[in-house]
């Protein structure tokens, strides 16, 4: 293994584990019925939503090459399928992959 790649992996995993580990340490003193727990629950959902929205609107990697219009269109259509299919998770997910690959050639 090249030393640079190996070090990058170790540094990345440490940076990731820090947040997980500190989270567990803090959890020892937090009761699940407390207000603090409810606040952190809101923070977790909001941060995840912020991350997902950012991934779609300002993507990194291969998605950044797809047009903004095609990404928004895929999200809206997939959400439409999600509601039509009575909140089934699988149909909109599979639809999104196929429609993204297809729409990328047209928009």
């Amino acid at each position, binding site marked *: 293994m*090249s030393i640079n*790649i190996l070090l*990058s*992996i170790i*540094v*990345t995993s*440490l*940076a*990731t584990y820090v*947040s*997980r*580990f*500190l*989270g*567990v340490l*803090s*959890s020892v003193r937090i009761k*699940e019925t407390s*207000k603090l727990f*409810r*606040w*952190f629950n*809101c*923070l*977790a*959902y*909001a*941060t*995840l*939503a*912020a*991350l*997902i*929205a*950012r*991934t*779609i*609107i*300002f993507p*990194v*990697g*291969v998605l950044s*090459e*797809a047009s903004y219009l095609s990404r928004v269109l895929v*999200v809206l259509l*997939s*959400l439409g399928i*999600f509601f039509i299919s009575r*909140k*089934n*998770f699988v149909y*909109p*997910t*599979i639809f*999104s*992959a*196929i429609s*993204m*690959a*297809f729409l990328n050639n047209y928009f």
Partner: protein
Amino acid sequence: MVKKELFFRGYKSILKSDSPAIALGCCFIAIGALLKNIGFNIQESIFSTMLIYALPGSLVMAESILVGASLISIFIAVWFVNARLYPMAVSLFPLMMDEGQPKWKYYLSCHFIAVSAWLIMKSNYEKIDKKDRVDFWIGIGSATWSVAVISTIIGFYLSDYLNKDMLMGLAILNPIYFTCMMVGAMKKIQVALSVTLGAILGPVFYFFSPEWSILLGGIFAGSFAYLIGEKNVN
């Protein structure tokens, strides 16, 4: 040690029809292909998914390696993008804390905190006795973790056969799956507001600071949703 029955019950939860295994797998196939394209060998790719097991972190690492960033800047960039794992841990582990369970289970199994396993646990924990929840969680985490590692291997070897359109399809799958899961979880006012405001404020803060946007967007949106929710309940 870990109770086998609970472990396997957790492990099998990814076999359900609405499980995140497909979305998670497809995403790590894309990561496997990406890692090969930036010069990782198969051992490095496997090692990377096993140790990091957080998708945005792996993407940031890959981008940083491409631009030749220093190790310190990689650490800071990854820490920022993965800091969401802290509130995720704090909003999950108090549900599993039990005096009778050894601490090492919690310190080791926190490695499994990722959106997929977190959402499965959040929607299933009430069915499990509190003292057994950590064993169930270890089962869920081991399952999603093995899907990620196997998919990375598949992606690595498939990379020569995947064109750009296919990679784009694989990359959009995960955010769409999680968008649907989050919308599905919007049953209480606090969660519904957190998700809606987070989705708006995250991108808005991106214009001020791309690095801080997820954290700041999450903190503002979550706190605001909490306050409105508490007021409503009272």
